């Protein structure tokens, strides 16, 4: 009779399909366009090991209450649409597995520091406006399209790319702004998302718009209002470190970086 190695048998037992479990999903419901009432609706949904919060929410929408308001699109942490507060912490619903939350009750609420559109969907106007303000594009006089020589490239060394590459991973999900304590207090603060993007373009050696951007962020509700709580970096699903970007930007303004 064949014997199974103890370690192998342990691995086999772990790879078997888990029996279906269920969790209680508490969804914060509100519709500011109708009234100021806020309430939590509870739904019991079946889950597997791989079920994400977004999967559970879509399950609710499909089978229990189709009126739950959520914004989502790609389901793979690329579009940044499904940001929400999950058990009190900002996160992407599509990137948060229920099994990793170690809780029988999952509370989902709209992100803080944004006006609610309905239920879990929030208004991104403030973030998008601040993002536009820092001019998130390469600024320079000449172009990659040249009338005489045709198309050319602005080449960069790997070292120069390294200076800003992590900040290009921003998907504008807004979780950093939601976690930021200054955003909660100061309604005109530019926010970690826009500041990190300002750094991304200033650190890009193809860009010549450093002074323009520094002028935008160097005002009374700009970069200096950051208290370096670091919560923006903790919640970023793409591994961007806006808190570090802000400190590096301050180096430019204090004259200790070129």
């Amino acid at each position, binding site marked *: 009779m064949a014997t199974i190695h103890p370690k192998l048998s342990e691995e086999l037992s772990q790879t078997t399909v888990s029996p279906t479990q269920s969790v209680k999903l508490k969804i914060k419901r509100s519709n500011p366009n109708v009234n100021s009432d806020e309430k939590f609706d509870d739904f019991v949904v079946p889950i597997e090991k791989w079920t994400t919060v977004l999967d559970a929410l879509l399950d609710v929408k499909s089978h229990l209450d189709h009126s739950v308001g959520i914004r989502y699109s790609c389901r793979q942490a690329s579009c940044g649409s499904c940001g929400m507060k999950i058990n009190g912490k900002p996160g992407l619903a599509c990137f948060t597995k229920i099994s990793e939350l170690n809780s029988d009750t999952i509370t989902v609420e709209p992100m803080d520091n944004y006006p609610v559109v309905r239920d879990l969907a929030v208004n991104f106007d403030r973030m998008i406006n601040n993002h536009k303000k820092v001019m998130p594009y390469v600024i320079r006089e000449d172009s990659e399209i040249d009338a005489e020589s045709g198309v050319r490239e602005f080449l960069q060394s790997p070292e120069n790319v390294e200076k800003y590459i992590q900040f290009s991973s921003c998907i504008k999900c807004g979780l950093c702004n939601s976690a930021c304590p*200054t955003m909660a*207090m*100061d*309604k*005109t603060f530019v926010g970690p998302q826009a500041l990190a993007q300002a750094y991304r373009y200033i650190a890009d050696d193809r860009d010549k718009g450093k002074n323009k951007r520094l002028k935008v962020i*160097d*005002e*009374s*509700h*700009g*970069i*200096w*209002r950051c208290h370096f709580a670091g919560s923006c970096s903790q919640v970023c699903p793409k591994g961007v470190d806006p808190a570090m970007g802000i400190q590096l930007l301050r180096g430019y*303004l*204090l004259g200790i970086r070129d």
Partner: protein
Amino acid sequence: MMILRESIIMKIHYGTAIGALFLTVVHIMMRMTQDFHESLQYENVIANYESIGYAILLELLLILISVHGFNGLRVILLEMNQGPTYEKLVTIGCLAGMVALIAYGSRTIIMTNMGMV
């Protein structure tokens, strides 16, 4: 209302903090030349003020702490509320408070140094 760019103000803020820290260390070390309770006796305090070097140190400390403190207060107040009128009032109020405190403190230092107390 911005007279200076925020980065200039914050450079002053950090500079005054470092300066005040240094002068406070000097101030505390000078207290250690005698017992603590002796250093607080009226005659000794007046004698300190009457020394021109010490009076200059106190004046500098007063200026540095006032500038740093009132800018810190301005920053806190700007975070608590926003709006052009409010911000103008906060800036003017903090500047006025800073000038008033420096003027009153300087008056005390100068008068005591000149033996008018």
